[in-house]
């Protein structure tokens, strides 16, 4: 075990929290419970996928929710090859 793995272990609860928030917002909307965050997420991804092929590995999604506000963060990595393709 090195220092890095110690640090990673410290980080496992936040990872769990984030994975749950993304998963549950998706599952709740699948059950018909309206959830603005997952609707937004779906629409944004649909808009982006019109212009380039979305590879799951190139997307980082974060959702967070507390008492007063929610955040949705979508990070899409666009390889230069894709940009040329989209422009042509």
């Amino acid at each position, binding site marked *: 075990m090195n220092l890095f793995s110690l640090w990673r*272990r*410290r*980080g*496992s*609860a*936040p990872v*769990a*929290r984030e*994975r*749950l*928030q993304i*998963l*549950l917002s998706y*599952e*709740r909307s699948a*059950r018909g*419970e309206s959830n603005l965050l997952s609707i937004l997420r779906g629409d944004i991804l649909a808009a982006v996928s019109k212009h380039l092929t979305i590879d799951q590995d190139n997307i980082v999604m974060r959702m967070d*929710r*507390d*008492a007063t506000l929610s955040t949705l963060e979508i990070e899409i990595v666009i390889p230069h090859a894709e940009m040329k393709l989209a422009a042509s």
Partner: protein
Amino acid sequence: MAKVVVITSGKGGVGKTTSTAALGAALAQAGKKVAVIDFDVGLRNLDLVMGAERRVVFDLINVVQGVAKLPQALIRDKRLETLWLLPASQTKDKDALTEAGVAGVIKEMRGKFDWILCDSPAGIERGAQLAMRFADAAVIVTNPEVSSVRDSDRIIGLLDSKTQKAEKGERIEKHILITRYDPNRALRGEMLSIDDVLEILSTPLLGIVPESEEVLRASNVGSPVTLSNPASPPARAYADAASRLTGENVPMAIHSERRRFFGKLFGRAA
């Protein structure tokens, strides 16, 4: 008129049966008249955890089918005069439990007890839905772990749609009971914190039961932990949770061995 509470979780092994026994005993210790019902047909265990396994003669399905009358099937706890157990059937077909049958039993029991705790089977199938069907309130037992939290979310969805209260457009009272909590691991960021779980599930907290050897020891000897070792951290956590269930305002505390040790020291010094 009794208040009917379902103890549920979706996921198995998180502590539903332990919690039903402990909360039931804690309520009875506070002087309430309590019945605990095992809904886990085919896999009954509440009798074992409560140390009544050798006294089972009739069960819930016998009562539903009219083979036995309710007073014949109810087992009175040997330690607590006001605590009763209605065991599940161990052998019969799961389909023998009908909605109308359960409705009849609960209706009859409502007039006889202050509290009726329904120990739900794991899963989200018929048995779990029947256990929650007539509940006024729900205790959702959750471990601070991803699969348990996900399943609790699913169960919350069911409580809000499949219970009789929900169908009538009323709100079913929901509480999260966090079990197997390790405050040190949560502090180190290795375990979901209480706040994480509550925020994700957006449901109020009933209590925090710390991970403890006492829980296994209690089930080994067939005694609810609030009876086998009332001073232990899990017993105090369950007693607090039971008080909150009755509407008392008990400040939330994470009971730990260490605090108990210091408490003892101070207690002696005083």
